[in-house]
């Protein structure tokens, strides 16, 4: 059976390892999806321009939750400038497949990270 969500995407949705909050975060980004009403908060902990830890809170569909989790997994341990280069296609590729209509959710994860980085830089 061809599923619109790959098994891997479902795994990240059902057991998101990076969900939660970082109390003493260095940067916090809050974004929303004007199209369907989703809300996402990204927390980052930075050291030597590297994202040491990244967590998320997301109110949204399975795709939004899975991409939130995936972007955390991919960005952690990366230099900020490299983490910002994670494209929406990278997220989708890493998750396997998402339903066609859901690509904008991956977009949201990217924007969330960007907002968290901006917050971090503004505080520096």
């Amino acid at each position, binding site marked *: 059976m061809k599923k619109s969500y790959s098994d891997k995407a479902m795994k990240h949705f059902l057991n998101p390892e990076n969900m939660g909050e970082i109390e003493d975060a260095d940067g916090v980004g809050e974004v929303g999806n004007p*199209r*369907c009403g989703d809300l996402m908060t990204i927390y980052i902990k930075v050291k030597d321009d590297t994202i040491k830890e990244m967590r998320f809170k997301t*109110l949204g569909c399975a795709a939004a*939750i899975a991409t939130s989790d995936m972007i955390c997994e991919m960005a952690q341990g990366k230099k900020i400038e490299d983490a910002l280069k994670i494209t929406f296609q990278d997220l989708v590729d890493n998750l396997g497949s998402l339903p066609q209509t859901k690509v904008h959710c991956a977009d949201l994860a990217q924007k969330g990270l960007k907002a968290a980085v901006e917050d971090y830089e503004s505080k520096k």
Partner: protein
Amino acid sequence: MNKKIYLDNASTTPVDEKVLKAMEPYFNEKYGNPSSIHSFGQEARVGIDDARQKVADFLNCEAEEIIFTGSATEANNIFILGVLNSYEDSHVITSPIEHDAVLETVKESGADFTVLPVDKNGFVSLEDLEEAINEKTVLVSIMYANNEIGAIQEIKKMGELISKKNKDRERKIRFHTDAAQAAGYLNCDVDSLNVDGLTLSGHKIYGPKGIGALYKNSSVDIDPIIFGGGQEMGIRSGTYNTPLIVGMGKAVELIEKEREKEKTEKLRDYLIDQVLKLKGTSLNGPRKRRLSNNANFSFEGAEGESIVLMFDQEGVAVSTGSACSSNNLEASHVLRAIGLKDLEAHSSLRVSLGRNTTKKDIDFFLELLPKIITSLRKISGR
């Protein structure tokens, strides 16, 4: 995985065994074209006549007033466009919680239209209806019971109002109701309801998909929108789909026999009471005058599609009006029409019971619900 539990009967129902059995011979035994005069055709014709009579009995009308269609959507289109196209400069009245098969048809028709307001429970008021009628009005189409929030409209009273208005009008107003969801649970006597048109769907009443029926009062002239061999009194051309028509007839015949309205309603009320005990939960739609098998909730801090997918993991099928789960990423127009905020529509969940739903099924759902909502609230942090 656990046993599968189907709580999405408003979406579609399984075909009843007896319906399936009734249909079977018409695929490759009695396969003649009902329009043929030889015996092959005539035995198929009997099946169709019989089905038509069953539907007519259910609706308390003449067999000639029943038109079989390819779906409820098609039935709505045929009646609405059929009436509107036979007038120049016409006006139609409808409600904002209609199925798209009505709303889109009205919008596409080119006629002037009024979409009546509904209150927070989804009810249309008789006063608003009366006020909206003008000298150009030729059609009112209001759904009998809503598919998402179960609101049951006062069709009988609306029918009375319209007939009264028609007494001193030269331009008669035709009254149509989409009863696709209602048929399984509510009285569909067209005479007592005072309707000129009524739509039924096969697959919502344990019949097959791909078949609908339209009641059209014999006094109503409509222009066909499908042309061809002139089947169905010239209103719906196309070779008779004998097995589906027979299935539809059988499904309609079984409604009264198998109807377990009280049982379903009791289970549904139990479900609502239990769910509302959970914090941050609300009921969408009315508590009274609600279709027996329908419940619809919103859960703060959880999104509908996520809830549906988590239930699906456990083998339970439910549905949502969340924007995230729709193709156009817009929240359900019904939930918005009754005043739900985006976030509330976003977190909506519809549970629709059926003939086969048991207390055990509901209890299993109730056992899973808090776990699922809690885990999604943890993810959302809300």
